[in-house]
């Protein structure tokens, strides 16, 4: 889902396309947009699973406060995807609990 014509913000500007890898799947994204935006556009709704109840979580506040959208980005767990911009070739993984550090 991507809003291409917003009633207030207007039309979506043309931007450079980049590719990110989510759990091994290649996803198209626009340069400069938050990881979470690219994920939503690609239909990804579950970003992580909670450590105690193993329940799925995704985008909630979308402004960097609630930490519900954290994922493992380039091997670093707990990265807030709603306030972190995509970069070409970024590797993103669904975070289970507190995640794992890259060895």
């Amino acid at each position, binding site marked *: 889902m991507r809003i291409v014509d917003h009633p207030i913000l207007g039309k979506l500007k043309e931007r450079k396309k980049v590719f990110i890898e989510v759990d091994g799947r290649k996803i198209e994204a626009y340069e400069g947009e938050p990881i979470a935006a690219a994920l939503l556009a690609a239909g990804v709704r579950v970003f992580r699973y909670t450590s105690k109840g193993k329940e799925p979580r995704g985008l909630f506040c979308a402004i960097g406060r609630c930490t519900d959208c954290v994922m493992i980005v380039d091997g*670093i767990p707990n990265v807030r995807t709603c306030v972190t911009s995509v970069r070409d070739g970024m590797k993103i993984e669904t975070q289970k609990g*507190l995640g794992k*550090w890259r*060895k």
Partner: protein
Amino acid sequence: MVIKIMNFPLSCEAVIIGGGMMGCSIAYRLAQADYDVIVLEWRNIASGASGRNGGQVIQLDGRDKDPSSIARRLIYTKENTKLLDELVEELDYDFELNRCGSFDIAFNEKEAEELNELVEIQRKAGDKEIEFLEGKEVEKMFPMLKKGIYGARYRLTDGNLEPFKLTYGLAKAAKNHKAKIYTHSNVDKILIGDNGEVIGVSIQGKIIKAKWVINATNAWAPILTPEIDILPLRQVAVLTERIAPIEKPSPIETVIEGDVIYTTTQTKSGNVIVGGLRTQARFRNDHYKEDVSLEEIQESTSIISKLFPSLSHVNIIRTWAGTMGFTADGLPCVGPIPDIKGLLIAAGFSNGMANVAIIGKLVSEYILHNGKTSLPLDPFDPARFYKKKINWPEPYNYTVLAEFLKKL
């Protein structure tokens, strides 16, 4: 502020002053033996050092090179570890004891040599749970720790626990055995009769009579028993958000950037704690300050990223300062105060977790069995400091104090 007037009893058999882990531990053992005991705490349970430390269970802290002192200390701390294991079963409260070992890490060759020598001395003195690890080995165990490790002293059976939960667990168990615990109850004075016998305490204009009074207020002990000098030492700690396990949660003691000793550990829930402080408080009273300045937070935070470069982006969610109590020989001060019958002190713990269970047991035995204890209290005898003036260094921090204690 609303001051609640407590319904204190008129008398009891033992009054414990201080609701920290030591006071609660003594109360638990006494109450278990059906002794009529009350605890008076001026703030809240575990609001002093008991709730402000890293929870490290290090049975031989510091760099002790005196074989007889090592052997003597280990008798108590090893027994303490055994009792902690038992408390895991006994208390209806998970205090997250994790026996994951402890490290003293050297980041230069000179220190590695010192540690290697230390391990040899300590092994000879009877500590078979200690070994020296080569730098490469440590780097393999701690891939996230900063590179350039020259070696480490590794102590197998040490670990960490959640000090808040331990204190609350002990308090709860004491209450289950009918001990009474009063918080926000500040004792004004310990009352002593003309015959040199303790009468009780005066509190909020009332008198509670007691056969025994135990001062378990650690760094604050000199307020009530000025005969014994205990030095406050302020330390600052920061706590990160919960993060994935960093391979080994073990407590690490290390000296970085020259002279400051930092300790770090990861709790069961995933937070990393780093403590230590470079700045030296100018006056003794400054060591009781429990607020933390921005500079101190910045310093402690920078230590995390220096020790664990890959954690440099991790968020700090809490920070605090706490006050430990030091005696002039680094050993706790536990036992009767000379010349006053019925007055005991259990203070001067610079390493509470390694003593809490055994000291609680020994103090209760002292009271229950007319001064007889299963392990002698002699090494901790308060008489060694009774009315002695000590020329403490000033200003001081942990490192200055450690140097001072070594020279004595």
